């Protein structure tokens, strides 16, 4: 029998190990979130990322080695973005019924996200490449990384900022809306999906099905709108 260390050396460079670790971390994190009664603070994405990051740091595994396995999961962000077409088609009546408030909130919300990110980045004196990386931060990771790359940001930094935004939005949306006594779940969900993309949408589905539906609508529409508005707004303010 080989010694266990050489087995680790062998396995730790295989994509299989890191793909399995990613899936198991997610399943474990989702179970913890479920046990915690879907409390806003027990966000499964946050728990899974902390678990994976800890394993990488403790085992001294380079991110590049990890990503060789995890890329199969990451790749699915593209098809998952295309798949947002289905909730849009499914809820075309709900969209048509709320078309005017929805479009107004979409344009105002998307502009608020991009403009506030750029202005605060300038106010805090962040470097240009960081400013370009945070501009598309409210849209889903695959799209935000694509926009960031097109305008000269750092896609890897964008990914971290996007995920952090999603987690913070998912944690804060329920207490914030309750504090403001907003009970319209279509409006609450729409805000969650627009500000906090897929992670906010997952949270909205945990709270109320109608909120989840409108979060999905916002996530899909915002991915399109933000992709169009970031380049001109950056040229104007950046």
């Amino acid at each position, binding site marked *: 029998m080989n010694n266990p260390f050489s087995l680790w050396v062998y396995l730790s460079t295989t994509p299989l190990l890191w793909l399995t670790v990613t899936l198991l971390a997610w399943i474990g994190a989702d179970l913890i979130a479920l046990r915690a009664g879907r409390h806003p603070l027990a966000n499964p994405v946050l728990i899974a990322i902390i678990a994976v990051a800890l394993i990488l740091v403790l085992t001294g595994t380079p991110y590049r080695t990890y990503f060789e396995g995890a890329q199969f999961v990451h790749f699915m962000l593209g098809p998952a973005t295309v798949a947002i077409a289905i*909730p849009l088609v499914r809820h075309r009546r709900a969209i048509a019924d709320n078309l005017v*408030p929805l479009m107004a909130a979409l344009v105002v919300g998307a502009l608020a996200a991009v403009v506030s990110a750029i202005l605060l980045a300038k106010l805090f004196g962040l470097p240009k490449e960081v400013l370009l990386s945070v501009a598309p931060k409210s849209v889903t990771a695959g799209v935000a990384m694509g926009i960031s790359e097109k305008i000269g940001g750092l896609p890897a930094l964008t990914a971290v900022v996007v995920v952090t935004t999603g987690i913070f939005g998912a944690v804060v949306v329920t207490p914030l809306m309750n504090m403001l006594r907003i009970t319209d779940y279509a*409006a609450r969900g729409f805000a969650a999906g627009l500000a906090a993309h897929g992670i906010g949408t997952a949270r909205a589905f945990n709270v109320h099905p109608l909120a989840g539906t409108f979060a999905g609508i916002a996530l899909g529409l915002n991915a399109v709108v933000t992709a169009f508005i970031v380049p001109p707004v950056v040229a104007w303010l950046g």
Partner: protein
Amino acid sequence: MLRALALLLACQLAGEALSHQFGLPVPGPVVGLVLLALGLGLYARSRPGFEDWPVAKLSDLLLGSLGLLFVPAGAGVVQQFGILGDNGLALVALIILTTIITLLATVGTFLGVKRLMERGRT
């Protein structure tokens, strides 16, 4: 299921091709989303049973575990400690402020316009 996956990938591929060829500012998957939504929207008009289509089921599966798909990108935090060390506090403050501003602007506009329209109707 396999055909549904092929449909999603084909839409993404067509989107990438269009985005690249015409130098669109919009990433390929978003163009693919628009293509699929337009196509399905037109197709679903004349046919019932949209919910039973494999592409609807595959979409539910993907979007139901959407959180998982963010884990590899999020774990990239381990290689960003340098840039985060220099700008970390400012980035955290920026994320907190912009997210709250965006949530409030969106929900406020949605409810405000909805109320204006309801008042207009009565």
